């Protein structure tokens, strides 16, 4: 009896937490379905409409916020950042996992310190530098600076995946008659493919969710959704329903991706410090 009560109490506590965790999202859905004229007059009873989504995903509102463009920008810079980090990070992660060479730990620690460095330390000088170099408000500029987010993640996690792989597999390939390059591409790489997929998606999510880099280093051409969603809050009449719709649209890609990599999240989130 007592046991049952305790168990029910535990379930209740869990449900309470998840109400707290889910309510904001639910409320955004409600808010986004509200017509503008009922925005401030009702809370839960109203005539639902998709107008907000139409406005956000359409030509933009009366202030001309090009949200679709922001969305595409986010897609481009996030994909670009992940691709660049993979090309550069995979060999580095492999080297750090397979060789003990002077400087490898320093490099790894420097990369980790990027993860923990306050972003503005780098951005403010970059802000000045980008203006001079013409990289301000460009895709290249944002992809470059997003390496601060994606590269440490990819190098650290892929190193832990490569380290888990017995070097004897590649040694066997060498003795089978393959070169080192072939051993890497034919043996090591296919075996860490799940890791690469997971870390790429996670890096994409982090790049997508980043706010401070595009906030400062873009203005209109390369602005991303995270910055763009804020623009609906401006103006003299805040459009809460549009803001809610924009917020929801902007979280769709990361949420979809997150669902596919749940299994690998632990290692990703902890930079390889925790394996599961």
């Amino acid at each position, binding site marked *: 009896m007592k046991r049952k009560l305790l168990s029910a109490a535990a379930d209740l506590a869990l449900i309470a937490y998840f109400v707290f965790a889910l309510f904001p999202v639910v409320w955004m859905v409600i808010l986004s379905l509200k017509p503008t004229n009922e925005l401030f007059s009702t809370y839960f009873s109203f005539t639902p409409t998709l107008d907000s989504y139409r406005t956000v995903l359409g030509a933009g509102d009366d202030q001309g916020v090009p949200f679709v463009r922001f969305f595409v920008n986010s897609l481009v810079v996030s994909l670009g950042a992940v691709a660049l980090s993979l090309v550069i990070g995979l060999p580095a992660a492999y080297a750090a996992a397979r060789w003990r060479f002077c400087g490898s730990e320093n490099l790894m620690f420097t990369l980790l310190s990027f993860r923990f460095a306050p972003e503005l330390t780098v951005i403010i000088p970059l802000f000045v530098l980008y203006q001079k170099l013409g990289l301000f408000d460009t895709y290249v500029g944002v992809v470059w600076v997003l390496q601060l987010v994606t590269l440490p993640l990819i190098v650290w996690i892929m190193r832990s995946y490569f380290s888990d792989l017995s070097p004897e597999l590649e040694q066997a390939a060498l003795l089978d008659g393959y070169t080192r390059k072939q051993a890497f591409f034919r043996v090591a790489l296919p075996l860490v493919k799940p890791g690469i997929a997971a870390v790429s998606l996670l890096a994409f999510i982090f790049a997508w969710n980043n706010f*401070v880099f595009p906030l400062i280093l873009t203005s209109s051409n390369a602005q991303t959704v995270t910055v763009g969603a804020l623009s609906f809050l401006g103006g003299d009449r805040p459009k*809460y329903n549009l803001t809610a719709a924009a917020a929801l649209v902007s979280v769709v890609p990361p949420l979809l991706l997150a669902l596919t990599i749940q299994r690998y999240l632990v290692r990703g989130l902890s930079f390889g410090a925790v394996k599961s």
Partner: protein
Amino acid sequence: MPGRTAPAPVADHGAAAGTEEANGKRAVRAVPAWRRSLRPYLLIVPALLLTGGILYPFGLGLYYTVFDFAASKPQPDLVGLGNYRRILTQPAFWDSARVTVAYAVGAAAVETVLGVAVALLLHRSSLVGRVLEKILILPLMIAPVIAAIMWKLMLQPSVGVINHLLEPFGLGGVQWTDTPTGALLSSITVDMWVYTPFVAILALAGLRSLPASPFEAAAVDGAGWWFTFRRLTLPMLWPYVLVAVIFRFMDSLKVFDIIYALTEGGPGDSTMVLQIRAYLEAIRFQRYSFGISYMIVLWAVVYLVTMVLVRYLGRIQNRAAEVPR
């Protein structure tokens, strides 16, 4: 090579493939040792270049801090450590430092306790728990700035849904983000909303990888729940939780998105954490040197704290690894 015995007749097959090798027709190249030792460096060259590309602006920033570079002063003068002196003697800096630490400690502590609690509840794996676990990561995948926007809409004093829901209890009309304490607590709440799953996920992974035998032994000995938790679960889980705490604490020290979207440092300076102040100084007021100096100070603090915590983590993990499993 005269006098050399013919190498073994190779296996009992593939005469063609065998003889080629046996006769040593293929040139066998020796790779000198220096080229061999160069290999890992070739692989990391791109990463090094990129790292250099990121360190360069950092170095440039460091260089700027000894000038008084600003939009209003494009021909800066050397001021030496003047910027730092000014920052460290400014009450505003110490206010920000206090707010930052309060925020980081508060958020990390609340998230740790709540996250571990959620993990423990989920670890029971009741039906409810198994269903809910699937959506645990949801807040974590939402951009913090978007989360802050969502909460801003809900916390709006006059038309926000929170006050509306509290009204029946006679608690309506709370000025959430418009009072100094309320603003700080609201920011921490948003942080908690986003990042509690982070702690919970790592703690849950930890719980699931704990060895079963000590718990079975404790159960046989008739140990109570609290004893088991205090003496077994918590100590063994600590390395996992610590990873989460370190990440959360370091990240909260440099919080920007949530406060920028929720309060922009206000009301007054009540949520003016260091990164927000540096942003205002450098970008809004375009006092570049001064803003960067702020960031360098924050960076130094974060760097030192990281070193200490990571070293502590290493010790804890080593100790945990020594525990026979």
